[in-house]
């Protein structure tokens, strides 16, 4: 029983990580209808940036999160303007471009760090929290709480604020939104930057958990895609719940099947959702429709 509960907790916490990483991606998918292959690399960049802030500037990693998120926001603006906006009507070129970005960022970091592994050792990583008699890693619990808080805050933003409502309108129907006077291009810019900033927060909070490596982005991107498909395009609660489900499935299958088959599991989830319910748990638009709608 205790093993089961341990796996459960582990799965939920892992799910929190996936939710956090995927929320930004989901927003970008839903609004800008762009598949950002480089999203995992944004997380990776943020992780290294946080490391730098913490180890070399002596800032508390959780405060660094705010700094890193802001920097990533600006970075996101730049990427959207320079790379994605020109390619709005060319989905295949978007794939090439964001994949190129992925390779570029991954290997630039490799070149800079020369393959040396870093880890944010110290006080934070070793904190263990006692959860109903079971042990849980403190930093992971923080991630879970953050994921929940961010999901809630994002939902409030989308429901209550004007820019949020504009974004929701664009998710539903960009032609109609344009006709209503919504500046769709600005919505894209804002959303992409926001999605990047969210990746930044994710990276900052995950820095104490993982050993930093330039390849860690690739680890997240596939899981994030599975989460987004499962949860449904453009749905924040979908991304949150989807992340938890993927985390739980990975945790349980890792124990009862084989941890090495992680990627195979993600793919099976991906395909299963597409066959059974293509719009995901809560999505308004199915993954299969992306690319059908006019991109302009």
């Amino acid at each position: 029983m205790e093993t089961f509960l341990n796996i459960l907790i582990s799965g939920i916490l892992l799910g929190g990580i996936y939710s956090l990483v995927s929320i930004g991606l989901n927003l970008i998918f839903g609004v800008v209808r762009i598949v950002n292959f480089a999203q995992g690399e944004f997380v990776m960049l943020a992780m290294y940036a946080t490391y730098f802030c913490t180890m070399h500037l002596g800032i508390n990693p959780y405060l660094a999160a705010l700094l890193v998120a802001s920097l990533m926001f600006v970075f996101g603006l730049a990427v959207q303007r320079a790379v994605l906006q020109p390619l709005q009507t060319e989905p295949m070129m978007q794939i090439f471009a964001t994949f190129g970005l992925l390779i570029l960022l991954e290997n630039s970091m490799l070149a800079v760090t020369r393959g040396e592994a870093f880890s944010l050792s110290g006080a934070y990583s070793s904190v263990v929290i006692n959860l109903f008699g079971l042990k849980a890693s403190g930093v992971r619990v923080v991630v879970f709480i953050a994921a929940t808080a961010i999901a809630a805050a994002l939902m409030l933003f989308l429901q209550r604020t004007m820019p949020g409502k504009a974004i929701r309108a664009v998710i539903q129907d960009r032609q109609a939104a344009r006709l209503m006077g919504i500046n769709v291009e600005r919505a894209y810019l804002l959303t992409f930057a926001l999605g990047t900033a969210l990746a930044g927060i994710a990276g900052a909070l995950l820095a104490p958990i993982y050993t930093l490596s330039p390849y860690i982005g690739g680890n997240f991107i596939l899981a994030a895609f599975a989460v987004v498909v499962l949860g449904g395009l453009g749905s924040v609660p979908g991304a949150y719940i989807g992340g938890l489900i993927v985390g739980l499935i990975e945790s349980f299958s890792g124990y009862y099947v084989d941890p090495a088959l992680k990627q195979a599991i993600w793919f099976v989830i991906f395909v299963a959702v597409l066959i059974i319910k293509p719009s995901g748990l809560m999505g308004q638009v199915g993954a299969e429709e992306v690319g059908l709608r006019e991109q302009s």
Partner: protein
Amino acid sequence: MTAITQTLTNGQRAGSGPKPLAEMLLQYAGWLLLSLLPLVLVWNKPYWVNIVAYSYLFAGLAAAWNIIGGFGGQFSLGHGVFFAIGAYAVARLYLDLGLTPWLAIYPAAGLASMVAVLISWPTFRLRGPFFAIATMAINEACFAVANYADRLTGGPRGILIPFRASVANMIFIERWKYAVLTFGFMSLVVLLTVVLRRSRLGHYLLALREDEDTARAAGIDVLKVKLIGMAISAALTGAGGGIFAMYVRVIDPPTLFALPDIGVKFALISLIGGIGTIMGPVVGALLIVPVENFLRGTLGGMVPGGHLIVLGIVLLCAALFLKRGLVGAFTAVLRRYWHGKAP
């Protein structure tokens, strides 16, 4: 119209009926013979012969990808899977059953084809980028499986094919023989795409790439056409994988499934050369493979991952500025020039 524009506009003469297929094949055979030039130039330098041989192989593989990725518009990042299946199948058939690779290639291609149809059938429900993601996930999943199923694939260490040179074994001492082999492979695939481009399947693939609804309204069974295109593409890729196995004689999961080196490379070569063109993959490969080798040698030594940084930049810039690829841009310029000259 000059002969060149005739070639580049897929063999249709204004007003005088369709150009016979034989004539088109002959024309492209001419271009292919022209692409032998690099080999001829470096024939006595084994290092360069090796690179040219690789270029031909990847040209053929990119041309195979181009069938479903270029003509069909289905951006697959998972062709490494078919490549790997071909490689492992030929290796296993050769080592365990003593079957000559010249024959083993056929069942290997067939297997790759069947697997392709199986995994594409659910994933073709996805449009555009999501299809790409799914194929990427398949690639990663198969990578994990290849590491795991070590009885079949030799696991992480892979399979080593001992060096026993003979034509029957498809193992040669002289590098230039490999170059001839891969040239043959490339020519076969390219000429096949010429036939395909003219066929009903080719037209249907291009149609569904542009707009699936329009295609359906024209009576096209979109899923069936995609699957057939994928089956052909995967079979050819698997064959190329088999040849690769007999060339390098060491195949392991990292070599076969690495996206930047294999899966993405096919797409990149097609992009630079010209997606959906016929000679594009050849031009792209003859450009990229040598350059990448050069970069890997120089940059890769100085800066870890240096050559891949360049690859990333090339991908980005090509997507932004060179959408039609070299052949595509060349064709467009020619057409404009011809229009300007005509009365």
